[in-house]
């Protein structure tokens, strides 16, 4: 761990526009939280699906600046995309872009775990329920 954070990490860390929760209401909303016991890290993702798209994505995270910055970047990336965008592999590219030390791979992958779980929630919801996200 080098202790030096890139400018982008610092920016995302200082001003995480997507940090927080989604108010229950309007569109279909789901939340998942995953954690990793080794370093005690935790990631919570919430999203509203609207017409098969992620109309809003929010995160909360307990972890180091790299994890927080990556979570923010992740949310910004997928917001507005189809729900299935949550299933893409994003962590390797994020780690490179944010110069995350390799020993933090484990905690960064929490993001993918949470995203997959979130996608499942949103997709299940839409398949066994209201059809409006399908049109």
């Amino acid at each position, binding site marked *: 761990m080098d202790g030096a954070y890139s400018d982008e990490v610092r920016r995302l860390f200082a001003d*995480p526009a997507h940090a927080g929760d989604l108010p229950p209401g309007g569109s279909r909303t789901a939340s998942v939280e995953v954690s990793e016991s080794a370093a005690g890290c935790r990631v919570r993702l919430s999203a509203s699906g609207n017409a098969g798209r992620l109309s809003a994505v929010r995160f909360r995270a307990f972890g180091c600046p790299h994890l927080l910055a990556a979570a923010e970047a992740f949310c910004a990336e997928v917001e507005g995309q189809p729900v299935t965008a949550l299933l893409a592999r994003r962590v390797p590219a994020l780690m490179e872009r944010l110069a995350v030390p390799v020993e933090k791979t484990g905690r960064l992958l929490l993001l993918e775990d949470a995203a997959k779980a979130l996608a499942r929630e949103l997709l299940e919801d839409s398949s066994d329920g209201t059809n409006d996200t399908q049109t």
Partner: protein
Amino acid sequence: MNASPDMVYLDHAATTPPDPAVVDAMHRSLSGESGFGNPASTHVAGRRARAAVEQARARLAALLHTDPGNLVWTSGATEADNLAILGAARLRAHRGRHLITMRTEHKAVADACAALERQGFEVTWLAPERHGRLDLTALEQAFRDDTQLVSIMHVNNETGVIQDLRAIGERCRDRNVLFHCDAAQSVGKLPVDLSALPVDLLSMTAHKFHGPQGIGALYLAPRPECRIEPLLYGGGQERRLRPGTLPVHQAVGMGVAAELAAARLEEDLRHYARLNERLWRGLESIEGVVRNGGREHAFPGILNVSIAGIEGESLLLALEPVCVARGSACNAQSGEPSHVLRALGRSDHLAQSAIRFSFGRETTEAEVDFACRRYAQAVAHLRTIMPATAVQAA
């Protein structure tokens, strides 16, 4: 100080800026103002260099109320700790192979002891009492017939907790066991009177009391029992205990730092106590903040606080431009939670959030106030990000 300073340095337990008088003396020494040379040379240049080194040794000795002949220069406290522990253990190995130390020691002591364990020595790792002090009864019970060395630090580098050197030393003397003390965090900052303390070996380093980095010393009590093996072999410098060309400017710097410390010690201590009080008053009202280590028997130059629900590495970044430490500087890069706070009974969750504030001679109240505000802001910012579950899970 203006509203947003470039940097507020509150990490003096990691390293202190050298005092301007130290810098000046070193600069003059490096410039050859009083000559330069190898103190081992017999010619005039060498003699001048040696005189400078011996003057410095005398200054350090005066700070510690001991004879200059009892001090051996080293490259710092890490080397002094290793020299004392490995050197004493190896020399006395034929008599016994048992050592006693604490779980809250600095890595320089803990890792040296662990290395001896791998080499067939046995080490008893005593746990501290709740506030970080050694339980003297536990120490008494730990002594064995084959115990050769006890190594207990003076001031803990993470919490500032002060151990009772006299009580520990007396128990060692009673049993004819050597007592080594890592005093890296106390020499130059708290009174250390070696003419009165039953300590056999004591490590110190200049950069913790406004001297230069890369020079320290080991004190060896003038007792026949107090003998050690060297770690390095070579020229006959430093009574054969520490060969290598003596770095004149470094010794000069440590000597001046010692002289300043001797003159300012009481004043500095009052300054640190005021700053400590002020900082704690500012922090204690923040929800979830706890103080690590007791207030009694603590060096006021250090204040260590944990906070529930906040991750330490992120807290450290959010505190910038306030420079403080998580754990000690030496673990900083590994990111492991502090073994010291764990030994004090803190949960992993609280231990990982610990921030050590430490003051220096030049620290101002305005800096402390700034740090306080910054801490509150950082915590507020991170609480908008960190899930509430993190606190519950802890």
